[in-house]
């Protein structure tokens, strides 16, 4: 290890690298066996060969030999694992005779020096682009930022936890077929097949040829009625079923429409847009191009004719722009409130329809959406005996209804009923007929426009008099180095030019020739693979490695230029470039891809937590984002590695932290807001503020009623002792800002009273600064006391969820996960004959009892002494990471204690975190190895792990910043060797 410790020493080894590697390449070829020295040989004989000799070969391990051929990779792996088992004390098994410390040391020292000497740094196999890298490479190469791989594109397989490791990136026939298809698709995008002019036709759509969706339209007396001006097209619009434009062109469009039972004199306006027929019916109308806004002045049909361009795949879309009603909850609730105020019968009928029992025992919602609801409602309206006794604005039924109408879901249900009122009584827009004639002439649609842009980018402009073949050569000379991400020699250009020559010679057009070139370039191994150049990791390979590592994209112009001038490998330049490309946002491809794979959070979308945990899909998505924000924060701010384990912040929404991390903003000691609030006298609050709240708020949010399920009188204002901080602040804020009490409420607040509250809340507002926005649903950095049970990677919801199965927890699985991904001590594979642990449904035993065999059986113990403690310590976290004190079903208090591999006893998660902070290099080593695996596409070997060890140690001595560590890793031989 000492070999790599000092920085200057490292620089020297970098310079010496070519020689070292040549030497080791030679030694690879020399197939010489080196005898095992006497001392270690004796230790092997005395303590290992009883079980692992030629004859016994326990666990298929045979260590019986006098000399070792270190050039053999398999041999190196074998002795590496011997070193690992012996140094971790896993072998010999604890019930066997143990070597003395001196004997063990003799074995280890010999193995260490032999392994270091004979394991050359480097050795990544050519890597094909992973699916993610491939997609991103196509996006960059053709400047198609929205390009998505087709549905059904093969997935990459994982190798050592990552999908971009050379060994795991197998190229299979189905994948090659998929590459061929993508190449063809891209070629077709740049050079679309020739269009033929279709004959002009005339197509007509009447009211019965239109799409009716939800309550958007209804055919009444040979006309289609439209009533809502809502945004989502499937709630307000209609469009013809069989009028899909097959060829982009100019068309003559005729529309006739009339007013239906108008209640005012001005013109109704019919909006005519062009929609893509395959776009989602959930789309908002305003994403589609407006063709015309038609004035409809009369109850007699008006007809207009106009010409407009329509593109392939489009049809017409109709909406009544100035309709009475909208599918928008605030507007809908307002409309209903005003209507109730002026028409009590209307109010009583709605009460009757929505609350059939006159109370909240049954509330009809989605069940009566649309015509069903209208039938109930119109029956009630027509009923002479309709009970009007509760038709007042302050009746709880009215209040409840308006509340529901003011929410998204309730609005859809009831607005869809209201549509039917308008279908029956008007006003409505009457649509009679639409006719499309054409194409009158062809025009370029989005497809043709994009193709022309792409052609320009691909070939540039052809010079006058430039021959076709010269033009093709020029195109290849500029495009091939971009596509292959490195300089391309003459011979390669000639080969591709040969394709063009042959194709042109058989009478094909220049466009089809270019089309053919694209198809072929994109299936070349020079495009599909990286690191295919012979010899060392040269400047261009380094540019590629750095770029794909930090940005998941091909190297940009600046990197390629530096590579061209031979400057990139200069340590200073490399560092500058690494800093330039370093991810800065949680949405960076590197952050998402790396954390998703390292921490298995990319599995989250597939895990469906049992509903009893009340962990919604939105929370799963937030949990994944939290990891990305957390990682980015530590990286970009260069925070110490220990912050991964025990930081002084959460990075999520206050609401999420409150629901999942027992988080209370103001209970954090180091928090300026609470410091200020502590200065407030609670007595002052009771004297000055509470009476205002009592008078103004408690009538709706107090003992008698809890509008919005919200009760203020129960909130604890004693912030100094962990009162209801955020909720309470929200209340004060809403009053201070005039949002509460609502204008229509029967209570009022004087300006003086509001002033008192503003004064009260002002210091809090001033102190919140940039790191605390009170929006409860914004992801933000939340202050946290160190040493908490929550906080840091380990207890994050994403990780606790990813390491469980959504239903129950399995301490062994979590333990193995922690060893592999946090501590960097992957246990050997489990023996095959062990049955899976069956959860005990009778509930007689605890998980601990079930696993007691692990400690009683020596064969199990050698591995499980490491696995189980780091698994059981997380038993306090349920399958979605919420805290629990008892094991479910058996009402037994969870015992999370254990003894760590180094003999340290731990009581619980906080102990474990404290231990890990003290031994942070374990974690740093583990994360560094993961980063290097992801970056280099190979699992670090013995020598490389030793180099990383030295880097981790050096970084720890210099502040232990994460960004520093990453930069040191990029400067390492391991990163820079092929």
């Amino acid at each position, binding site marked *: 290890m000492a070999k790599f410790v000092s920085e200057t020493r490292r620089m020297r080894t970098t310079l010496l690298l070519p020689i070292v590697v040549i030497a080791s390449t030679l030694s690879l070829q020399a197939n010489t066996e080196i005898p095992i020295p006497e001392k270690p040989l004796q230790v092997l004989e005395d303590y290992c060969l009883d079980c692992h000799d030629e004859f016994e070969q326990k666990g298929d391990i045979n260590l019986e030999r006098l000399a070792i051929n270190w050039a053999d990779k398999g041999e190196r792996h074998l002795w590496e694992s011997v070193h690992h088992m012996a140094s971790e004390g896993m072998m010999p098994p604890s019930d066997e005779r143990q070597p003395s410390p001196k004997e063990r040391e003799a074995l280890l020292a010999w193995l260490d020096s032999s392994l270091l000497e004979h394991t050359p740094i480097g050795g990544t*196999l*050519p890597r094909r682009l992973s699916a993610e890298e491939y997609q991103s490479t196509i996006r960059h190469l053709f400047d198609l930022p929205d390009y998505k791989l087709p549905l059904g594109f093969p997935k990459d397989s994982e190798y050592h936890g990552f999908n971009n490791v050379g060994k795991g990136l197998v190229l299979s026939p189905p994948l090659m077929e998929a590459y061929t298809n993508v190449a063809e698709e891209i070629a077709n995008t740049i050079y679309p097949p020739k269009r033929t002019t279709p004959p002009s036709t005339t197509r007509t759509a009447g009211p019965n040829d239109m799409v009716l*969706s939800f309550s958007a339209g209804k055919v009444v007396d040979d006309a289609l009625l439209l009533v809502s001006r809502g945004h989502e097209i499937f709630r307000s619009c209609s469009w013809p079923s069989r009028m899909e434009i097959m060829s982009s062109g100019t068309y003559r469009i005729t529309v006739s429409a009339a007013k239906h039972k108008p209640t005012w004199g001005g013109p109704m306006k019919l909006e005519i847009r062009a929609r893509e027929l395959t776009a989602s019916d959930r789309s908002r109308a305003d994403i589609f191009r407006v063709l015309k806004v038609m004035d409809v002045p009369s109850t007699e049909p008006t007809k207009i004719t106009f010409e407009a361009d329509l593109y392939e795949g489009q049809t017409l879309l109709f909406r009544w722009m100035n309709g009475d009603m909208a599918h928008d909850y605030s507007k809908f609730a307002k409309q209903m409130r005003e209507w109730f105020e002026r028409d009590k019968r209307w109010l009583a009928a709605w009460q009757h329809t929505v609350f059939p029992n006159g109370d909240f025992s049954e509330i009809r919602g989605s*069940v009566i959406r649309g015509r069903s609801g209208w039938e109930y409602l119109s029956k009630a309206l027509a009923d002479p005996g309709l009970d009007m006794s509760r038709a007042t604005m302050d009746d709880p039924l009215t209040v409840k209804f308006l509340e529901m109408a003011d929410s998204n879901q309730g609005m859809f249900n009831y607005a869809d009923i209201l549509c039917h009122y308008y279908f029956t009584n008007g006003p409505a827009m009457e649509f009679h007929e639409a006719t499309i004639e054409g194409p009158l002439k062809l025009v370029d649609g989005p497809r043709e426009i994009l193709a022309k842009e792409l052609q320009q980018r691909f070939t540039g402009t052809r010079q006058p008099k430039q021959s076709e073949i010269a033009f093709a050569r020029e195109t290849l000379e500029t495009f091939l180095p971009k596509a292959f991400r490195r300089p391309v020699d003459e011979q390669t250009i000639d*080969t591709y030019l040969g394709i063009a020559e042959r194709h042109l010679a058989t009478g094909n057009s220049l466009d089809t020739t270019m089309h053919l070139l694209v198809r*072929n370039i994109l299936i070349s191994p020079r495009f599909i693979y990286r690191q295919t150049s012979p010899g060392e990791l040269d400047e261009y390979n380094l540019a590629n490695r750095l770029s794909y590592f930090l940005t998941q994209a091909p190297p940009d112009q600046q990197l390629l230029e530096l590579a061209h001038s031979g400057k990139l490998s200069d340590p200073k330049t490399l560092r500058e470039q690494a800093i330039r490309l370093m991810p800065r946002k949680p949405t960076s491809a590197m952050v998402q891809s790396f954390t998703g794979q390292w921490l298995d959070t990319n599995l989250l979308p597939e895990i469906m937590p049992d509903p009893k945990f009340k962990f919604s899909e939105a929370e799963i998505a937030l949990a994944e984002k939290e990891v990305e924000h957390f990682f980015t924060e530590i990286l970009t701010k260069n925070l110490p590695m220990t912050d991964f384990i025990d930081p002084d912040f959460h990075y999520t929404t206050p609401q999420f932290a409150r629901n999942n991390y027992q988080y209370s903003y103001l209970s954090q000691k180091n928090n300026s807001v609470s410091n200020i609030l502590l200065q407030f006298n609670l007595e002052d609050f009771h004297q000055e503020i509470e009476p205002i709240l009592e008078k103004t708020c408690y009538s709706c949010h107090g003992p008698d009623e809890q509008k919005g399920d919200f009760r203020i009188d129960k909130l604890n204002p004693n912030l100094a002792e962990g009162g209801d901080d955020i909720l309470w602040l929200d209340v004060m804020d809403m009053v201070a800002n005039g949002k509460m009490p609502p204008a229509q409420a029967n209570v009022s607040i004087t300006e003086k009273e509001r002033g008192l509250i503003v004064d009260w809340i002002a210091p809090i507002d001033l102190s919140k600064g940039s790191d605390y926005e009170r929006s409860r649903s914004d992801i933000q950095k939340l202050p946290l006391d160190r040493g908490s049970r929550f906080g840091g990677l380990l207890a994050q919801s994403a990780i606790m969820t990813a390491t469980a199965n959504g239903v129950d927890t399995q301490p062994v699985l979590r333990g193995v996960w922690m060893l592999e991904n946090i501590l960097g001590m992957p246990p050997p594979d489990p023996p095959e004959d062990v049955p899976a642990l069956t959860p005990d449904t009778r509930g007689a035993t605890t998980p601990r009892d079930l696993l007691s065999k692990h400690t009683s059986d020596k064969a199990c113990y050698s591995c499980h002494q490491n696995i189980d403690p780091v698994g059981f310590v997380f038993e306090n976290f349920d399958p979605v990471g919420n805290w629990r004190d008892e094991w479910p079903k058996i009402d037994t208090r969870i015992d999370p204690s254990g003894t760590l591999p180094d003999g340290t006893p731990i009581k619980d998660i906080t102990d474990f975190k404290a231990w890990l902070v003290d031994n942070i290099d374990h974690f740093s080593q583990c994360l560094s190895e993961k980063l290097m695996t992801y970056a280099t596409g190979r699992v670090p070997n013995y020598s490389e792990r030793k180099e990383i060890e030295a880097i981790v140690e050096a970084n720890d001595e210099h502040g232990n910043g994460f960004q520093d560590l990453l930069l040191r890793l990029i400067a390492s031989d391991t990163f820079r060797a092929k």
Partner: protein
Amino acid sequence: MTQKPKELNAQSVDRRHFLRSAAAMIALPALESLPVIGTAGAASAAPKAKNLVSIGAYLGWHQNAFYPKEVGRGYTLPNTLSPLADHQNDFTVFSGLDHRAPNGHGSWSNFLCGNTPNVYSMDQIVADQIGQRSRFPSVQLTAGTGEGSKAMSFTKQGIGLPMIQRPSVFYKRLFMSEADKTRMEYMLRSGRSSLDLVLDDALRLQKSVISADRDKLDEYFDSMRSVEKRMERQISQINDPLPTTDYKLPDTDPITPNLLMEAEALMYDLMALAIDTDSSHVLSFFIDGLGQVFSFDGVPLRSGYHGLSHHGNDPEMIRDLVSIETAHMHCLNGFLNQLKEKKRPDGTSLLDETIVLVGTGMGDASRHSNADLPTLVAGGGFDHGKHIAIDASKPEAPLLGDLYITLMQQLGVETNEFSNANRNLNQLFS
């Protein structure tokens, strides 16, 4: 960390296990002689069926209108199935089966995937075994527009397969026009002839690298060879007579949601043609649904399809929902008619050799429950005509996967397990 579903392997099926499962079915009057438990050996004889058509309805089938009141033979057809009256002895209705899968729209794909959504689906297992015998190893179709990127069929790797939505696209694949054929031939010939040069260059690249890298690049050449072979096969077959048909599609594709039934009928026509011409043996068909309002006999229903599926047990809503589901069955009836009418030279009908599986991944869309999935199997050489009711509350009650094992064995796929199931329904259904 990947969660592996608990694996139940064949050895864990012991006698006790079987007895208990038999007990779960004792309620059935139709339990005939106690058969031998089916084994993979049963499949070694010539398969009794050679085509599989899997049909899944996104918004489910309302159980009360799908399940007959009586069990066994001679039941009265329930409302939803009423259009199938002519075929009552050509299909079997199953109630009480499911995959014990999670609930919700997000887990819908449990229909063909079993206990774990979005993994190797039953139709793809079958396609990987028997699909290669035809032009299209498997075909995925959908009718209607719904929420977009859902998939019903998943490859061994767990990749959701895209579905063809336009009848015209499927038609073009089955019966290529001259222009399509010319374009395809051009693409194949130009691609094939230029490939030599790309491979020359690739070979030059391979020669320049060290031996370990060279071996890795062999993967490229192996894969390329398979692409090359496929191209050559297609080129050599380019002049083979393709199936022809007099069948004509309408001018525009019925892809708007209100034309769902029309799209369904066209896809059924095309599927019958595909089977008749041996173009594919494994087809899956997804019936989507969202907010569209259907009109039957000129009367619009009281709510959109999705809205109706959330009926909350309102009888009027249920009646309208069932009328949509009955319309689906009308379309299915047309399909069964065609399969029954079309005969092979030896006189057997296409229906005899085709298993038609009709089901869903959602048992009760109103509650988003994925338990108790209504299932119907037609054709495929089974003894039909019964309603087989499974009491899922009994321990060891059979799973829907057990039925799938029986279906797969009928198709000659030698397997004893599927997802969380490792038995079969051979003793009840053969």
